[in-house]
């Protein structure tokens, strides 16, 4: 028997733990579409998010049920059939050790980290350079350099004095050269003449009458050329700021699920804008037949019945831009979330054209249709808005990772049709494509 303290060893676990985390990150990257659509991300609000990542484990032969459920032995009271507990399908952290679904662990991930992975996935690594329209902000005036003329108020005394002293030494040398007399004598003459060269020359002709100074003490002599003035410039700064005007149809047809998809997309759009602009402001407009500017919580909570006039929202967005966010100072992004229903598409198209005329950066159209399969009936299932946009503008229709995409050829128009959670990621990727968010003006 013995108890002893062995030599300490280096920490082996750390390196292998890092290897595991790296592998997890790869998995996270593969699962981005799912992670991005995770509800807890937009409700967390802490900059970190708990996402259920499959615990990396090595498979082995073991019993299992086909539905993903499992079983085992437990202890306690209760009749057969009694429910012991539930575990929500998404996001919610489980009780460690109590979970038989050990394959999933909730891992805390930074939203920033997820963003990085999104950008990596898009091959957009150097987003630090802000390749967007920078706007000039007037900060008043600032002094920048020196000029030979200007108002007296801006006289640069120091620089002027320096010039004067230079002039003194120059004149002293000239006197010496001209008269052939010693420096101290010349200085005495220059001083007596108060710096006027010709007078000093005259004085030197009668050296005997000249009061001789003890030492050369330089003093500034000013000619008109020697005055130096501060040069001023108007002070401006390049600043990048963006406004995202989010519009949403809150008429009866927009269900909670649809709103969730809209919210999730908006969340990521804002995250992205925040990354490229120093300042990002989001304004919310809801509409049914009429539009109004609302606060964020109202935006997502309102549900009203009635018809749908999309133009009302576009009109309001236009006036918001004119009054508060002029495109000369703001990068303007507008996004409209709708299920595609519209009572007056002609007028909507007209208002949209007006928005484009204002030179906004982008008009995004997120068509949210849940539980519909446009693929089955492509001809009949194009929504009113989708059809109207495709007809009114020169557009290219594509399909990317299951998401239908509408891209304006001449206008900064991007439309995406999102029908389920998994579409959020590809839809956002469309938005993130460089040529789309870069300045169109």
């Amino acid at each position, binding site marked *: 028997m013995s108890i002893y303290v062995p030599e300490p060893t280096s920490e082996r*676990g750390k390196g292998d733990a890092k290897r595991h985390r790296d592998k997890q990150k790869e998995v996270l990257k593969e699962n981005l579409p799912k992670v991005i659509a995770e509800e807890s991300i937009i409700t967390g609000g802490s900059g970190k998010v708990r996402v259920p990542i499959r615990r990396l484990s090595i498979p082995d032969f073991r019993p299992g049920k086909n539905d993903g459920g499992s079983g085992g032995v437990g202890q306690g009271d209760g009749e057969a059939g009694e429910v012991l507990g539930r575990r929500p399908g998404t996001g919610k952290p489980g009780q460690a050790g109590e979970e038989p679904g050990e394959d999933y662990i909730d891992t805390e991930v930074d939203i920033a980290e997820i963003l990085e992975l999104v950008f990596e996935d898009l091959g957009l690594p150097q987003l630090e350079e802000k390749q967007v329209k920078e706007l000039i902000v007037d900060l008043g005036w600032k002094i920048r350099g020196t000029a030979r003329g200007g108002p007296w108020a801006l006289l640069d005394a120091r620089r002027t004095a320096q010039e004067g002293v230079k002039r003194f030494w120059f004149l002293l040398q000239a006197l010496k050269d001209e008269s052939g007399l010693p420096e101290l004598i010349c200085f005495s003459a220059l001083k007596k003449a108060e710096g006027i060269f010709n007078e000093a020359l005259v004085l030197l002709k009668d050296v005997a009458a000249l009061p001789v100074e003890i030492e050369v003490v330089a003093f500034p002599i000013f000619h008109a050329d020697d005055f130096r003035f501060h040069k001023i410039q108007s002070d401006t700064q390049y600043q990048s700021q963006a406004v995202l005007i989010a519009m949403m149809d809150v008429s009866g047809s927009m269900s909670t699920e649809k709103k969730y998809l809209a919210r999730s997309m908006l969340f990521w759009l804002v995250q992205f804008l925040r990354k490229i602009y120093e300042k990002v402001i989001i304004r919310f407009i809801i509409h049914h037949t009429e539009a109004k500017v609302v606060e964020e919580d109202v935006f997502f909570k309102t549900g009203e019945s009635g018809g749908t006039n999309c133009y009302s929202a576009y009109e309001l967005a236009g006036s918001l831009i004119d009054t508060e966010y002029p495109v000369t100072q703001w990068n303007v992004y507008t996004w409209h979330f709708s299920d595609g229903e519209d009572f007056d598409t002609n007028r909507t198209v007209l208002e949209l054209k007006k928005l484009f005329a204002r030179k906004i950066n982008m008009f995004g159209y997120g068509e949210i249709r849940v539980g519909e399969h446009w693929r089955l009936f492509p001809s009949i299932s194009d929504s009113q808005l989708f059809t109207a946009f495709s007809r009114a503008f020169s557009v290219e229709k594509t399909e990317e990772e299951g998401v239908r995409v509408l891209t304006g050829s001449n206008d900064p128009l991007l439309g995406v049709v999102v029908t389920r959670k998994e579409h959020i990621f590809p839809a956002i990727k469309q938005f993130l494509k460089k040529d789309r968010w870069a300045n169109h003006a």
Partner: protein
Amino acid sequence: MPKPLDIERLKIIEKRIYEIAQEWGLLTTDVQFEIVGAQKMLEGMAYMFPVNFSHWSFGRDYETHRTIYDHTGAGIPYETVWNFTPPVALLVETNPFALNTIIIGHVLGHVDFFLGSRILQIGRSFSDIADEAYYAAERFREYEVQHGKDEVEKIIDAGMAILWQQNPDIFMEEELDEEIARDRLLTMEREKARPAKDIVSQFGQNNNRDELLKKKLQYLAQRVPPEPVYDLLGYITRYSPVLKPHHRDILTVMRNQGRSLAPQRKTKLLNEGWATYWHVRFMRRLFEEGLLTAEEHGIFDDFHSGVTRENKVGFNWYSIGLALFEYIEEKYDKGRFGREYDMCEDPVKKAYWDTHAMKGKEKIFQVRSFYSDRMAIEEFFTDEFIHQMRLYIWESEVDAKTGETTYYIAERDPEVIRKILVRHHTLYGIEPIVIQNANHNRNGYLYLNHLSNGVELDQRRRDGVLVHIFTLWGKPVFLETNVDNKRVVCSFDGKKHEVKQK
């Protein structure tokens, strides 16, 4: 800041526990208790051996333990003890004194089990396993440098997937030389056929039978492997056409580790129960003798109740194992065994049955020496014990729409619970999977057979394992098993998975 560990006092306590253990008839040996920092303990828990090769799964477990430790800060109420000669155990310097005392007692319980259990003697036969792991760590590092981390990792991943696919009979050393096994089989078949041949020949109708025997022998002569093989890792390591020497080295080290740990997996319930049984008694005695303060006894109570807490959806080895030994002891102290007791149908009489047989201690030592978990469950998980422990079988269902998992009690019938537990402890939860044919389709494909009578495999994991086996075997892999009560053959050919009706 926790108080620094009083090592001198711990030595006194340790000495006393040894004396008590010997007094109680426990087998003891010179256990090396290392006082270590939390980090080394957490690594010990994750890496299976004091020093082992590098792998992300160890890192993952290490980080999990570490996180729990950092967040609770309550000390590490686990013991790590290796069945080496001599046994090595870890004590964490920052643990409360009382906790380290429990651990010494608990470890001495394990050590008695190591020395006394017939099954664990197998584990001890791998006496150089710690050294092997130590040197393997160095060699594998060199392989990583030479062949790349990914390449080495791929082999380790694959090896881990089938690490526990071993012969269910741990006493049996599998015959890895095919030709010796084949000769033996052929001889046996010929011998079996001899008497029949003699009889049949009297009637002059031996042609047909001779033909059959010839065919059978021919089949045996060609069959690869001659007999089904349980030891998947061993067989593949030896016969795979694609593995390189360093792959074989890695897999051999892993197989040895798996085999040395297998006996512990077969006796986990008894081993943990036994150690818990004794640590409770050591602590009680130390307290009575005044070697532990009342406060320390309080700390012990807290940890003990934490470790033996009931789990709604888990099998607590410590509490159930402890209860099992106490149940057996009481049963045999009161003479509740034998024909007379079993035949008695009067429940009242049975409840008060006590012959003062006092055979309890003798019986539990017998169980420790000769039983595996499965044997103990078959014999002692009586209806009475299952009721007493309030055991049930739970199941979970995943709602396909919401993804919500619901856990519910599926079964309370002791008969069914016993059956499921026995099945779970016979092998590692599933019926064995054997290599039926290593030259399937005459193309060197690997054909595995799941000798299942109903238990189905988790499909996602099953397919994952097939991918790993493909990595090692290099040719298509087939697995005959059950899906939805039908016999199917699943396969993976390096690109896609297929499931076909048999």
